[in-house]
Each structure stands twice: as structure tokens, then as C-alpha cells.
């Protein structure tokens, strides 16, 4: 029978199927971090259970870690990180701690090590596990009870997800990125529209994306309510994986590629739902509200809540504008920001930093703005420094930080103050997400960089005039 990519990966991992019960699904890779695992290890200890497959489990420290040099000063954060270290020691698990060359955000570390591969099932106690779907893996976030379940059994009881094809036809214009694509997808589907689904992103525009850009797209699937997002593996995927530390080698590589090449939705496969988007219609996209579905093209204005047909959308928009302190009709380009954050599991990889650096180069960050650039992992940081990107950022007046989740969520010292407004390459603009009372606009790395320079939400195209004026002044 014809199947979709998601169904093929699912079916290849069913350990047990019984009438009236969820499937028991085998898990190929289990990633851990300090926030959602301590209670799971406690559960194992209480029941006297070991970790079934330490060799399929990997831990890193990311959510709590400070991005400035020195130890964790918050005593509660410190306990959480130390608890992870003790648990990994006790149960014999590999951990990449702060300061290790392989430490970083869990969703940056897995792919860069070559651990995330096509056709795998990948889970982590973190909703942005959907990132790994960019490789054609079925990857999804789980809660702590499920973390314990996977530690104990290397499997999960789950009902099959429904499938939704996101067809992105046409080509993206220059300056329009994966982040703009996914923000537009979420705005179209809504934050709840993807519930119960696995998305498969398809079409010319998706095929043309690099692996890192594909990770950005899949990363935010959860913001449309989808459990996972996937992209069929192709030559781009294989080229990215080849030679990475955990990628198959020799005859294993050939066998793996043969298997991975077959991992695509059959031509006559039926999706439960389809959504279509024309890439050539897209321009830089930003959010104005307090959920990731509340976004518009940067060229647009803050919407009037009354313009929404649905009552709950109206209420939600009115609440959002009150929280964001925005007036309907204000041009998005006129919104001033205080802080620009480049980083996170959405946009903290080397290509993101390169893109932001290319925009910033030769400019100065506006006096009223602080710009934080936070690599997604220690290796991304090293690579960026080897390319001189750190010097570009610091010369422009940005802060160059150590790897971690940083300002994506208010769990470490990098937070917004009440009323402070950010342009952020992260994934959530929820109330208080970046710190109590903080106001977040989600943007791409290109928009973030241009915004840092102009001080208002901007795209690189808006810098053209600015360049002339600087030159005129200098002359």
C-alpha cells in the first residue's frame, strides 16, 4: 500500500500492535537535557529500573547555562545541572557538560554530531525536537513521564499521527528565508491547526533549502500544533551527513544511503490534509502578537482586532496588542526594539550567524539597541570564530556569547526586563517567554541583524539608504 514518509518511518518502528491499544514504537535516539529529566531519573530509582539503552541516549546542558564566562550563579539552576551530571554518572550516560567542545543546544548538537539520521525515531523532553525531522527522521517532543518510559524501555506507547503535506511551491526571492517560510505557514494554519498531525514539507522551495534551513522550518512545526515536521532525505541530506562523527562509514554508509533513498512519500500516497504556499509570494515575515501564528509580512501594519472574523481571534488579538503595547495601524517597520537576539535551536547554527554577520558588517548596532549573538553550540562558536564572524559582531557593537538556549526562554541570566521589546530569531513570542513582561517579535536572522542597525523592525533592504547616509557623513 502506498505510504507517506511519516507512515513508512512509523511502520518500521512498531514493536507491537494490538487491537484497541496504542502502538509500541521503538526509539532510535533519546536526547536529554537538565530541565525535563530529573523527575524521570527519580522514577527509575524508585522502581529500581536501569536505563535500557545508554548507547542510544545522549545528554547535554543547555536551558540553564549562562552565556557569559564563569559558573552558574543561580543556586537553583546549579542544582538542576548538577542533578543531570549525577544522573548521567549513576546511569552510565554520555553527557556533554558546559565547557565541553560538544556542548550546546540539544537540537544543534544531535545533527552536528551526525547522530540524527534519516528514517530514525528521535525523542527528547523538549517540543522543538521536531527540528530533527529535517533529516527525514520522525522526531517529536515528549513529557517527563515519557522520558522515563523511554529510559526504561527504549519505546513509547503512541497512536499514529495523522499526516499533513505542506507544499511550498515556487522559489523564494533573495532575502526571504526558511524562517519566513515557517512563520507564514504557522500564520496560515494557526497555532492549533496542526494538532494531531505530522507535517511533511515538500515542494521546490523546500528541496532548494540547505540542511540548516530545513532544520529551521521543521523546528517550528510545533508552533502550528504539529507534533513533528519532516522533509524527505535527498542528496543535500547525505552530503551534510557524510563524514560526521556518528555517520555510518564504509559499507555501512552505502547500505544506509540505499535505505535512505527509499524514504519518500509514494507518488500516490494520501495525506489526511494538504496546505499549499507559494514561495514566490513570500517576503520577510515578523510576528506582532503573543503567539507564533500572529504574524504578517514586515511591509504590513499592526492589525485591528476588529478585522478578525472569528470572535476568539478578535479577543486574542486585542489581548496581544494590549500586552505588546501596540496600536492598530502602526507600520511594523516603525516598531522600535530594545534588544535583538540571534540564536536558539531555531536560528543558532553557523549559516544563521553567517547571514546575520553579512548584514551587520560595516554597520553599527543602533545606540538604543543591545544585540546578543549566541551560537547554538560550542562547535558553532568555534567555526564562527575561525571565520571571523565574532569580530564582525563585536566591531558592530554586538555581544558575542557562549552557547546555550539563552534568551529563547527565561531560564538563564539572558532575559528581557518588563516592558522591554525584542526582535528575536527564537521560536516563541508567548507572554513573558523571554522574561516577565518582555515583548517578543519573532524574526529571521536577516531581519534581526537589519533591525539591530536601524533600531526598528527592518529587513536588509531597508539598510540601503542608511549606507548612503553614513557614506555621505563620512565624506
Amino acid at each position: 500500500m502506498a505510504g507517506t514518509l511519516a507512515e513508512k518511518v512509523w511502520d518500521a518502528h512498531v514493536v507491537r500492535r494490538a487491537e484497541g491499544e496504542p502502538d509500541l514504537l521503538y526509539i532510535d535516539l533519546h536526547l536529554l537535557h537538565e530541565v525535563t529529566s530529573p523527575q524521570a531519573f527519580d522514577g527509575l530509582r524508585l522502581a529500581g529500573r536501569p536505563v535500557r539503552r545508554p548507547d542510544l541516549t545522549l545528554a547535554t546542558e543547555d536551558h540553564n547555562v549562562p552565556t557569559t564566562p564563569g559558573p552558574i550563579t543561580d543556586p537553583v539552576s546549579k542544582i538542576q545541572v548538577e542533578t543531570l551530571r549525577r544522573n548521567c554518572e549513576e546511569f552510565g550516560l554520555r553527557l556533554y557538560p558546559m565547557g565541553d567542545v560538544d556542548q550546546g543546544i540539544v537540537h544543534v548538537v544531535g545533527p552536528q554530531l551526525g547522530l540524527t539520521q534519516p528514517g530514525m525515531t528521535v525523542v527528547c523532553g523538549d517540543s522543538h525536537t521536531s527540528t530533527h525531522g529535517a533529516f527525514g527522521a520522525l522526531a517529536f517532543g515528549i513529557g517527563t513521564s515519557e522520558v522515563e518510559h523511554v529510559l526504561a524501555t527504549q519505546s513509547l506507547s503512541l497512536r499514529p499521527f495523522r499526516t499533513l503535506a505542506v507544499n511550498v511551491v515556487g522559489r523564494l526571492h533573495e532575502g526571504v528565508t526558511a524562517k519566513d517560510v515557517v512563520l507564514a505557514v504557522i500564520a496560515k494554519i494557526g497555532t492549533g491547526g496542526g494538532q494531531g498531525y505530522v507535517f511533511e514539507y515538500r515542494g521546490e522551495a523546500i528541496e532548494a533549502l540547505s540542511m540548516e534551513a530545513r532544520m529551521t522550518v521543521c523546528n517550528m512545526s510545533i508552533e502550528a500544533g504539529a507534533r513533528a515536521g519532516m522533509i524527505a532525505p535527498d542528496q543535500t541530506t547525505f552530503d551534510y551527513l557524510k563524514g560526521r562523527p556518528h555517520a555510518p562509514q564504509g559499507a555501512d554508509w552505502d547500505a544506509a544511503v540505499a535505505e535512505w533513498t527509499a524514504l519518500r512519500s509514494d507518488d500516490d500516497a494520501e495525506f489526511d490534509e494538504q496546505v499549499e504556499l507559494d514561495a514566490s509570494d513570500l517576503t520577510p515575515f515578523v510576528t506582532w502578537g503573543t503567539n507564533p501564528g500572529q504574524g504578517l509580512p514586515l511591509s504590513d501594519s499592526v492589525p485591528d482586532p476588529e478585522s478578525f472574523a472569528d470572535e476568539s481571534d478578535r479577543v486574542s488579538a486585542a489581548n496581544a496588542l494590549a500586552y505588546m503595547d501596540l496600536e492598530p495601524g502602526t507600520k511594523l517597520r516603525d516598531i522600535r526594539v530594545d534588544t535583538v537576539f540571534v540564536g536558539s535551536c531555531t536560528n543558532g547554527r553557523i549559516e544563521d550567524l553567517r547571514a546575520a554577520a553579512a548584514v551587520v558588517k560595516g554597520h553599527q548596532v543602533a545606540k538604543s539597541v543591545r544585540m546578543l549573538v549566541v551560537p547554538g553550540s560550542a562547535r558553532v562558536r568555534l567555526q564562527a570564530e575561525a571565520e571571523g564572524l565574532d569580530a564582525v559582531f563585536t566591531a558592530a557593537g554586538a555581544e558575542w556569547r557562549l552557547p546555550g538556549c539563552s534568551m529563547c526562554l527565561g531560564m538563564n541570566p539572558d532575559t528581557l526586563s518588563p516592558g522591554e521589546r525584542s526582535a528575536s530569531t527564537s521560536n516563541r513570542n508567548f507572554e513573558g517567554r523571554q522574561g516577565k513582561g518582555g515583548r517578543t517579535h519573532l524574526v529571521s536572522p536577516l531581519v534581526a541583524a537589519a533591525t539591530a542597525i536601524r533600531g526598528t523592525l527592518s529587513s536588509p533592504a531597508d539598510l540601503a539608504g542608511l549606507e548612503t547616509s553614513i557614506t555621505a557623513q563620512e565624506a
Partner: protein
Amino acid sequence: MDKFKTHTGVGVPLRRSNVDTDQIIPAEYLKRVTRTGFEDGLFAAWRKDESFVLNNPVYAAGSVLVAGPDFGTGSSREHAVWALMNYGFRVVISSRFADIFRGNSGKAGLLTAIVSQDDVELIWKFLDNNPGAEITVDLLARTVRAGEIVAPFEIDDYTRWRLLEGLDDIGLTLRHEQEVTEFEKGRPSHKPVTTLA
């Protein structure tokens, strides 16, 4: 996990849609390494507002939360479920729940009852007219009763059975451990391990 058959408790109307898990419990409260003590973080930002429903003493003993659609979106943090339960909630009623939140609830013993939005509106009205009134949630009959209102709710059979029996998921899976072992024998050799030499 405690068995869940029926629960009667004070209904709390939360007239908001898209209640994400960062609202249910902000990240700064996620640092505990236990499953208890999260009640102080529940709706922490909103509770600073005097007019927020949980600040009304009438709802002090609230245990059935009646919320707008798309409850529990965003982060996978099970702390959101623990915060609700630590505070005293046993049931959340909504017309639509985010997948991960609903899954986490089922594992931790919080009942998520899917009721149509029309019925949610009726229950909200009932609670507005009768603040502090009790709601009965009957998992056996799959109904929510509030005054004269009897609303059916959806929950999948398997989760219902586990809640009714108070069963531990891991214990259930370990009954099939042999099948997991058999499955592992057939895994391709090129699949990666995390323990590189």
C-alpha cells in the same frame, strides 16, 4: 497513579484561548528537580492581576478548570500538568488541547475532558451565574454535569482505561519487554550509537 472514576469540585472559568504552557508555568519556575511544589508557578504572571479568576476567593477550592480552545500549546514541559495538579486541579475542560499537554496529563493523572465549545460556553455562563458552583466529571459515563447541563466529553478508550485503573504505563510496556528485545535484533547495523569510542 491514583484511580480516577468521578470527580466533583468547584469549577473555575478561564475565558482565554491559546493558553500556552509558558502561561501555565513560566520557565523560571521549572528549575525544581521534584514533581511537587510547582503550584506557586501556576499562571504566575496572570495571578499578579487582582482580577484574575484564581484570585477570587470563591474559587479557592477550584479543582475543575474550564478553559477556552487550544489549551496547553507550546512547550512539552510536564511541569504544566504538575503545577495544575499541585494547585489542586483534577480536571481541565476545553474544546481542544495541544497534543503533548494532553499526553502528559494522561500519564500524570490529570483528566483532560474534550467538550464542545458550545458546551464550554454554557458551562461558563452557568459558573458566571453560580460562582463557586461544583461540577461533576464522570469518567465512566464520559459526562460533565454542571447544574442542569449534562455535556458529553471525549477521551480515547485507552487513556480512559488507564485512568480508571490507575495503571503505570512503564509497567504495562515492560510486560512486552521480550518483544522489544526481539525488535532490537532486527535493527540495521548502521544505526548510530551515542557511545563513540
